């Protein structure tokens, strides 16, 4: 034990209980301490401690270590990106939020030019949490970047081993990501993994991980879902959410009994109303005021996990109205074309205009849109979406809803039905159309500004003046900031894209 530690021990017990002897102190400290008053026991001890601390600090020898030095990075044969390219990189990295599409385009350009990322930007880029960026970053990291990756595990991950680790050791969000990755590669294996750990999962984890089964859902999943459904007990809110989720999954099985059951029952609520002495018959949606044999509390609330009360009387006329639209969102919309003998525009019109008051149309649009996504009918989506946005207040989808939509229908495909998609980028007409759609959308939420960024790669090369000319002149001032933000965003995207191309 060294001198300082001896002093620490004395201090811990206190000078009244432990004896302090200065004789063990280094000679120079003792010499100076000789001037202090020994009778003042505490003062003497504190002086000794102060002197010893200074003495040890001043005489401290640095530790000498025999560890091998790091092997330096290999000499680079390619040249670093030139000043102009660095300046652009800085601008791209400073974008908030980061535009991963443009950054990916930039990295591809560097690769094309044979340049590598300068050392000062390696860490920042390796930390960009975007799979596409990381994919394009690897070829331009250079030898130093490759060397640097070896020091930090998350930078060296190879997809398979990493997902395995995330699944085994990660928190629920990481496990969910891993399960998505498994599900993408091998849906059966992913379900088996979930099945294996099912009994150990908490209710919240079960709910989170079950959602993953929506991806590549197939009849093979049915047995597991039914077993999980049987196992559910009680009606706590979280259990109800799981129950509803399982029901949704069962309904979406390609040849599931639930889907068939809904398809058989829902159209029965459309009756034919005869007019003009029976010469004309028009369809009409007639839902029961209370419960009936189909719309029953035991079925919808206890078995399927929906609310047992109308959750929003503004959106839904009655409890059966709420259940109906929840069911419509889960049912293949083809049944409506057959039942109504009309096209998709007619279906949308029937449900949202002819059989609903305008203020109750939002839930209907949403159900039709979700059904269109779930059963992959972009034509219906486009109809419902375009008509939907023409009603103020009707597009109240959450960002999560949009994410779901875009998982199935890429943003650009929304317009494929009526517009032409040119190779590589959008035509002027298409870009103008989308921009105008977005101008409408930003009135309800600035979140939609982000869509301009999503499509960074596709926009037509408008000039700034052209973009300004697309802005409506008569917008009330409270909507203007959203429009201006969107226009500024597009201008910036186009200017950066030009800059990347010019490198």
């Amino acid at each position, binding site marked *: 034990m060294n001198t*300082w*530690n001896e*002093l*620490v021990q004395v*201090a*811990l*017990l*206190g*000078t*009244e*209980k432990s004896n302090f002897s200065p004789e063990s102190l280094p000679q120079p400290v003792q010499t100076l301490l000789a001037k202090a008053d020994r009778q003042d*026991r*505490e*003062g003497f*001890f*504190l*002086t000794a*401690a*102060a002197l010893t*601390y*200074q003495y040890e*600090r*001043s005489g*401290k020898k*640095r*530790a*000498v*270590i*025999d*560890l*091998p*030095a*790091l*092997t*330096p*990075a290999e000499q680079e044969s390619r040249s670093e990106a030139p000043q102009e390219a660095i*300046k652009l990189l*800085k*601008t791209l990295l*400073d974008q*908030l939020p980061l535009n991963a599409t443009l950054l990916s385009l930039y990295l591809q350009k560097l690769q094309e030019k044979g340049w590598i990322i300068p*050392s*000062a930007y*390696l*860490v920042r880029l390796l*930390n960009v949490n975007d799979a596409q960026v990381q994919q394009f970053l690897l070829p331009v990291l250079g030898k*130093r*970047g490759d*060397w*640097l990756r070896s*020091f*930090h595990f998350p930078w060296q991950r190879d997809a398979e081993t990493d997902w395995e680790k995330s699944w085994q050791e990660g928190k629920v969000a990481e496990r969910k990501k891993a399960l998505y990755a498994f599900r993408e590669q091998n849906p059966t294996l992913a379900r088996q993994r979930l099945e294996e750990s099912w009994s150990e999962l908490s209710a919240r984890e079960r709910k989170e991980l079950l959602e993953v089964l929506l991806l590549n859902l197939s009849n093979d999943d049915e047995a597991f879902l039914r077993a999980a459904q049987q196992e559910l007990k009680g009606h706590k809110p979280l259990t109800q959410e799981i129950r509803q989720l399982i029901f949704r999954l069962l309904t979406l099985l390609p040849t599931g009994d639930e889907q068939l059951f809904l398809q058989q029952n829902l159209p029965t609520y459309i009756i034919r109303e005869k007019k003009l002495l029976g010469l004309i018959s028009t369809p009409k949606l007639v839902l029961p005021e209370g419960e009936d044999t189909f719309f029953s509390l035991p079925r919808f609330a206890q078995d399927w996990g929906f609310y047992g009360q109308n959750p929003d009387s503004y959106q839904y006329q009655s409890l059966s109205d709420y259940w109906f639209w929840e069911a419509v969102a889960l049912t293949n919309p083809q049944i409506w074309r057959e039942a109504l003998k009309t096209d998709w525009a007619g279906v949308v019109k029937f449900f949202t205009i002819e059989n609903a008051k305008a203020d109750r149309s939002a839930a209907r649009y949403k159900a039709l849109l979700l059904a269109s996504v779930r059963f992959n009918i972009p034509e219906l989506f486009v109809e419902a979406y375009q008509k939907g946005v023409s009603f103020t207040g009707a597009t109240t989808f959450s960002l999560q809803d949009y994410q779901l939509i875009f998982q199935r229908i890429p943003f650009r495909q929304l317009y494929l039905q009526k517009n032409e998609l040119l190779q590589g980028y959008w035509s002027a007409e298409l870009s103008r159309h989308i921009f105008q759609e977005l101008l409408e959308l930003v009135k309800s939420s600035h979140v939609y500004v982000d869509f301009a960024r999503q499509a960074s790669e596709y926009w037509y090369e408008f000039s*700034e003046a052209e973009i300004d000319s697309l802005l409506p002149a008569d917008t009330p001032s409270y909507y203007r900031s959203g429009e201006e933000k969107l226009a*500024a965003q597009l*201008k*910036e995207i186009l200017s950066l894209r030009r800059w990347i191309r010019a490198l």
Partner: protein
Amino acid sequence: MTEEQVLQLAPDAASLKAGKALAVENKWVTLAYNSRVLWGEVQGSGKDPYRTQVDLQQTAFKCSCPSRKFPCKHGLGLLILFAKSAPAFQNSENEPTWVSEWVDKRQTKAEKAAEPAKEVNPEQKEKDRLKRQQQRYQKVEAGVGELSQWLRDLVRTGTLNVPEKGYRYFEQTAARMVDAQATGLANGVKAFNAIAYTSPDWQSQVLKQCSQLYLWTEAFRNLPELSPELQEDVKNAIGWGRSAKDLGPQAECITDDWLVLGRMSREEDRITVQQNWLYGYSSGRIALVLNFSYQNAGVETPLVPGRISKATLQFYPSAFPFRALVKEHTGYENRYPEAKAFQDFTQADTFLRQIWQQQPWADELPLWVEQLVLIKAEREWLLCDNQRQVMPLDPAFGEMQVFELLALSGGQPMQVCILHREGYVYPLGLQLGNSYQLLAV
């Protein structure tokens, strides 16, 4: 000024984010500059555009926006934009009135400050000063006596139960030191609350803090026997504030090209204390310039981390003159010569020992050391010199900063400026070719 240097001026992360977002040409109605000032007009939420100006000689900001942050997002945005895209600015000698009025006023003020102050009844002033000094001295003396007894009681009964004493125990003693106008001692007592009592060496830290405080109290009791410089150091440690007014004409001044090695800010009772460490290329001197601001008010200083200031620093009297203030700032230098660095930790330690002989409390000193490499011992990163001597990195120096250092060096030996802190080193920056690469703080 580079963009990285401008980013260092942001008062907080939110201002930085907003400033970056404003560093886009099309957001500005006007953009112009000349050799002394940079100005622009930007449309904000108000009816009229905000008028933003930056004094390029002293790096000072003014904006007509209502923000209380300093510099505001407009000032930062304007300067970031200038750093990254100067051609977007019109070079104009015709300053608008709102620009010239401000810059002229600043110049007049600077000239006036340089003039010697007119003394009004110097005899009376001196008499008042001595009276105030005497009163304060008596108050501090009483506080020092009380603290000395408090420390004795602590070591007499033992430090074993210090962790159980609780926050209030130390805060109350600290409050009594504040009443005694000994804020340095108060901070020293508050430091007991900052000790991690779950760490294995808390016992050592407690004794170190006790002995350090005791050293101050004893030094104060023996004040008349100390050299005038050391007296100043003791008084400063105890809590006598130092201001520019206290610096007489005899204060040491050094004109040099001062590299701002790094900057850190900390909060102390709603006061932001900004520390700037400097290195003088010709003199080889190191210096610490402190700036203070209340809450988020921001600090006006011409010093820019990573940049060389052509300036005269005035040093406060001390046995080891280190703390200084910027007496005169004449501009910036863009050429980065190589600093005189210690060859290894042994040389650096010799230098530290010389300082501690003169001033035992000196800490947080910046040192240039050559040929340092990073090595990893189990989970800890160390800086290793060419004699295989190692120093652990300050835990506050994060893992990503270690990777930055690795990326910049590629594993090759580098000349690093380290901040020496009680057993650890914190790399502030490194010499990279003909430039100084500041490490993110």
